[in-house]
C-alpha cells in the first residue's frame, strides 16, 4: 500500500475528529496535493447537513412516532381479528356447503322429515283420549271455525258490507 492509500483509509476518522494525524502523516499531507484535496472533500461531506440536523424537533418526532406506532399496532390487531373471523366464517360456509351438498345427506333427509311428521301425529294428548269419535269430531270442527264475533269486533269494516256481501264472506269462512 502506498502512503496515499494508507492515508486515504484514515481521512474519515480524522475529519470526524475521532483521530489525529501523526507527524509522518502531516509531513505527507504537506507534500501531497491529492491527499489534501481528498481531505477537503471528505471534510466537506462530513459537515454536510449538520445545521439541518440541529434544527430537527426530536421530541416532536418521538411523540408523533409513538402515536403512529400505537395506531398501527391497533390496526394490525383489528386486521388479525377480522382475518380470523373471516377465516372461521369461510370454514363454516365450507362445512355447510359440504354438509348440504352431500348426495347421501340429501337422500337421507326425506325419511327424517317424514319420521318427524309421523312423530308429531304420535304425540299423546291424554285429555282427548277419553272422547268419543263424534265428540272429537265436534271439537275439531269448532277449532276450525273462525271466531266470527271477535272478527266482527276487531274489523269494523264488516259493518260497511251489505247483506249479500256479508253472506258471501261468511260462506267463505265456513268453507
Amino acid at each position, binding site marked *: 500500500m502506498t502512503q496515499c492509500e494508507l492515508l486515504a483509509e484514515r481521512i474519515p476518522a480524522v475529519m470526524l475528529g475521532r483521530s489525529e494525524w501523526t507527524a509522518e502523516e502531516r509531513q505527507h499531507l504537506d507534500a501531497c496535493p491529492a491527499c489534501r484535496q481528498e481531505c477537503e472533500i471528505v471534510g466537506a461531506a462530513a459537515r454536510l447537513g449538520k445545521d439541518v440536523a440541529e434544527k430537527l424537533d426530536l421530541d416532536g418526532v418521538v411523540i408523533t412516532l409513538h402515536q403512529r*406506532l400505537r395506531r398501527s399496532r391497533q390496526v394490525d390487531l383489528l386486521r388479525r381479528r377480522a382475518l380470523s373471523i373471516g377465516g372461521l366464517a369461510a370454514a363454516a360456509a365450507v362445512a355447510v356447503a359440504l354438509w348440504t351438498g352431500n348426495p347421501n345427506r340429501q337422500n337421507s333427509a326425506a325419511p327424517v322429515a317424514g319420521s318427524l311428521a309421523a312423530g308429531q301425529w304420535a304425540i299423546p294428548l291424554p285429555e282427548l283420549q277419553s272422547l268419543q269419535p263424534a265428540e272429537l269430531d265436534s271439537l275439531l270442527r269448532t277449532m276450525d271455525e273462525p271466531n266470527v264475533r271477535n272478527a266482527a269486533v276487531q274489523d269494523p269494516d264488516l259493518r260497511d258490507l251489505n247483506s249479500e256481501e256479508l253472506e258471501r264472506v261468511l260462506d267463505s269462512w265456513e268453507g
Partner: protein
Amino acid sequence: MSAPPVAGSTRPDSTTDAALVGAYRTGDERAAAELVQRHAGALGRFLHSLGADPGDLEDLVQETLFRAFRRVDGWRGGASFRSWLLTIGSNLLRDQVRKRKGKLVPIDDRDIAADSDPHAELAALEAQERVREGLARLPKLQREVFLLRAQEGSDYEDIAAALGTTPGAARVHYHHAVKRLKELIG
C-alpha cells in the same frame, strides 16, 4: 398500552442499540425514544446530504423511523442500527424523488446561520455545494458508501452489511466515489 410521553430519556449512553431494540420489542417505548435521540440527527443529515428538500426533511425522518420500528425484527444486528436506519431513509428518499420526478435541492437554497462568520460560512457552504453536486452524479451505491464512511465513519464491514454487499466491494465503491468527486470538483 398507554405509556407516558417518552421524549426525554435517562438511559445511560452505554446501553447498546441492540439492547434498546430488544427492550423496544418487549414493549418499552422509552427504548425507541432513546434510539430516536441517538440516530435521528444523523439520519436527517444523511438525507439532507443526499439532496432531500429541507421542507420535507422532518417528515422523511419521521417516516423512516416509523418504517424502521414497524419492521424492527428485520434488523438482525449484521449492520449497525444506524447504518440500517440510514439505508431505509435512502430508499425512502429515492422513492419520493421518483414519485415526484423531482430534483434534489441545491445547498445554496438553504439558510446561512445568522451568528456565524458570513465569509467562512459561505466558503464552507460552497465547498459543501460542490460535494453535494458531485454526490448527485454518483451511482446510488457509491454515494451511500461514501456518505456512510465520510459522515458516520463506518467501517467497510458495517457498510457492506447495511447495503447488502461485501466489505471488499464497499471499499472499492468508496475509493471510486472519492476519485470521481476529485474529478468533478477539482
